[in-house]
């Protein structure tokens, strides 16, 4: 294999340059070809890609362009692939430009077929004939273009031609190479290592928590307050408002919020306190509805669930805000919960709640919105505390374990950052690549 790669290289060096020039190049200076054309499969890709590199022609400054040529193992002639500007020494050959065109031709054939059937139905002979001709032409064009695709598991070789005016000087042929897709992305190895380490930490701590080892959780005021808040609402006889963020279900902060909603809804169900849950995302709406409903049946009072308490408003950010603000000012809830992902609406909600005189508990990991919540709410759950909520409330060992693992994870990252920073400061080059994907 190595020999094949080196062969053209050796040949290129041995051969005296520029014997093959056209005789009519009186006006144009004579040019020499590019050398050392090497083909290899692109690593860590999905296949159908080859990387071609070459050394510039010594006359690179003179020439107009390079022309890249390709030939498959079963073909007999070279195909033109692309014209490239002087100074370029590598090219990734793939089907990116061909595939959309193939798609275009395919839909065109379908369209023509439809027209043809219509014409046949109406017995319009001349139109049908011309359509048939068009279809045949497009078909053959499609076949031709399909032929130009770069296939996996077929060996290809390349040539690079230097072009100046009419002159065209071809390089030596390259080695043969086959394109293939890979089954593991080697550049993601650091992600894999980090993932495995962190996941093992989590599993170890869950195991230890299950063994009965007591794990310490520091006091989080905002989470402590959640229980009291429901009680206060019951005393005052006013409802609770719970906004599960304004993002979609794929946002992990939304899911964290939903786990808290479960606890809050259950408490509310026990004390018979009305709970209002407005939603901005339809999927989140269907989940919150289910959660609140289940909470009521969990405490044995499924009939007490008011289907009107959980509802979808709109996906428009500020329309949602004005609707929720209206609810706050009309219903005057005793407690407002704003937990999950929030954007520019955070202060609009929190300040209105403040005007309405509600006790407010907010929590988000959107750091830009934290200052707004902190100034306008009574308690703010910051960043990761939001995720700790379900463990904090339930005290289940399975849930507390991972929190310990997170602390270890943070410690490892902090340690790595310091060590790598020092190493980088000492001028060790590879360290800044360790963390990059």
């Amino acid at each position, binding site marked *: 294999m190595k020999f094949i790669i080196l062969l053209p290289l050796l040949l290129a060096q041995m051969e005296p340059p520029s014997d093959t020039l056209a005789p009519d190049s009186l006006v144009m200076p004579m040019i020499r070809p590019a050398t050392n054309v090497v083909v290899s499969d692109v690593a860590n890709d999905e296949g159908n890609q080859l990387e071609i590199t070459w050394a510039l022609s010594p006359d690179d400054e003179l020439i107009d362009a390079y022309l890249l040529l390709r030939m498959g193992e079963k073909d007999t002639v070279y195909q033109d692939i692309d014209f490239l500007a002087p100074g370029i020494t590598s090219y990734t050959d*793939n089907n*990116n*430009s061909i*595939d*959309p065109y193939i*798609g*275009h031709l395919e839909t065109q054939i379908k369209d023509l077929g439809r027209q043809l059937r219509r014409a046949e139905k109406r017995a319009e002979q001349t139109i049908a004939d011309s359509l048939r001709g068009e279809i045949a032409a497009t078909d053959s064009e499609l076949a031709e273009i399909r032929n130009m695709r770069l296939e996996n598991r077929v060996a290809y070789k390349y040539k690079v031609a230097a072009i100046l005016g009419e002159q065209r000087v071809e390089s030596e042929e390259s080695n043969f190479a086959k394109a293939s897709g890979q089954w593991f992305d080697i550049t993601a190895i650091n992600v894999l290592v980090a993932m495995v380490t962190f996941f093992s930490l989590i599993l170890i701590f869950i195991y230890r928590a299950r063994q009965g080892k007591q794990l310490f959780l520091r006091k989080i005021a905002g989470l402590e307050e959640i229980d009291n808040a429901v009680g206060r609402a019951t005393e005052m006889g006013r409802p609770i408002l719970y906004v599960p963020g304004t993002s979609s279900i794929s946002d992990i902060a939304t899911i964290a919020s939903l786990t808290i909603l479960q606890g809050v809804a259950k408490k509310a169900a026990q004390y018979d306190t009305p709970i209002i849950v407005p939603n901005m995302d339809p999927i989140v709406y269907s989940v919150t509805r289910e959660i609140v409903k289940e909470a009521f049946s969990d405490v044995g009072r499924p009939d007490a669930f008011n289907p009107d308490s959980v509802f979808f408003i709109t996906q428009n*950010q*500020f329309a949602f805000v004005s609707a929720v603000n209206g609810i706050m000012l009309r219903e005057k809830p005793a407690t407002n919960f704003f937990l999950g992902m929030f*954007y*520019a609406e955070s202060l609009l909600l929190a300040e209105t709640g403040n*005007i309405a005189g509600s006790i407010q508990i907010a929590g988000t990991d959107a*750091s*830009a919105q934290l200052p707004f919540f902190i100034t306008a709410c009574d308690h703010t759950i910051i960043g990761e505390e939001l995720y700790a909520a379900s463990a904090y409330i339930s005290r289940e060992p399975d849930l507390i374990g991972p929190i310990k693992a997170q602390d270890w994870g943070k410690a490892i990252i902090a340690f790595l950052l310091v060590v790598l920073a020092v190493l980088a400061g000492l001028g060790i080059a590879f360290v800044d690549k360790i963390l990059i*994907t």
Partner: protein
Amino acid sequence: MKFWERLGSIDRRIIYLVLAVLVIVPLIATVKLPSKVRAMPRTKDIFDHVEAIDPNGQRKAMILSVDFDPQVEPELKPQMEAMVRHAFARDIPLIVLAMASIQGTDIGNEIVLRLAREHNKVYGKDYVLLGWKPGLVAVVLGLGNFIEQVFPTDYFGNRLSELPMMQDITNYNDVGLVGNFTGSSSYGYWVIYGYNEFGVPVAAGVTSVSVADLYPYLGSKQLIGMLAGMKGAAEYERLVKDRYYPNIDIELLGPNAFKVTVDEQTYDADDDDVTNLAHRFKLNEANLRQILEKENRFEKALPLLEFLDATPYTRQLIVEDIGKRFLEVKIEKQELPVDRAEMLMLADFYSVSASIIDTILRVEVQGLLKEVLGAKLQIQTADVTDLVIEEKVSEIMDKEFSIIFHQTPLLDTIADTLILEPSSEEKARQNLEQALKEVIRVSYPEAEISDSLAREVLSTELNDILKVKSKGRKRETEVSVERDIFLRGTQALPALSAALIVIIVFVIIGNVSFFVTRRRKK
């Protein structure tokens, strides 16, 4: 005692009222702005990056991704307009698309189409609108491979491969900058999948609320720079205007003679700008640096435009070192007598839109016609009022505006103006005829007076009058192009400052009250 306590609990409605008044007043009353605005570094970074794009080299194009809803338009639209103007002024090929918000398509298209008209840009050659495509990650990654793969057709349904501009723009390798305007965090996709995967430079324009979110990306240089809300827009507008949009005055001297006055341009630059400066004015960078270091001043007469070489106009460029690593670049005021073709080229060079030229000339021509009609033809104002003349003139000019430029006799135009007013028709005819005969008898005593000859002669005569008149003419209407019209963000800047000052003042009041009452309690 009570006073201090009360200061600590001012009703929020009073705060709202004060804020509202202080924000609205500077918006209504035009506040005179400082002549020089120094841009904050994050804004300047983007500007410098765009300055360094070579519209003819590699990485020449600019992609603007319009990812905001109309709700945040007041902050983000001026930002985008300023960047589009910058691209158009530098002839950078512009690609506009929407990704995170479908409503961005309409907003983006409106801005670009309007500004393209102003800059005489051609669709498909100078800019391309791609429309909206869902899929965020897939879009950003796809554009890196092959733009046509993601957008086989443009917004209007043309195949991308058939647009001349897209012939040599394939993927991010040909893109010098991606500008993302967003009210959410869609710049994250451009950074993670555009910059990290393909290395295409990304800049973001965001609302002031989310500015703090961008600093991690700015710190790691994954974002070239940032436009921060209205303030960022204002700064970028100033930067673009100071360099590319000097105030211009176009004066009509005669049918094919104009005087173009280009106001003095000054702007502050810093050390990094020397490269841009050299590039823009085709100077030798090393040489420029050397001179600046030695003499703190560089002065050169630059040929204004290559096409004007028949009349070798120059403009004086002065670069001065004003200390603290700052340079002052100054291009001196020029007054150029030019013909119509040259005027149009100059206007194009300084990005004066056709519609602005139109307005200027309309006012100028109207003034001239009115003078001529009033003075030479002795029309009674009672019969033909100013208003009537104005109406007719604009009506005619709508139809036959080109007449004015092509030295075609003005006579028909003028005559029509008068004759079309029925009550004064007779009088107008008489006056006109009298004037004709009078003029011709004086100029050509022996000539046989035929109608056609009379007309021809009178037209020449009128042209002369136009020329003479304009020399000592006192201009009645202000028609110079005060091109502050597009500084939308800048106009809002005093209001923004007022709002911040209100906040600061109230916070101080609150704290003073807090301290006083606490001390008294002790």
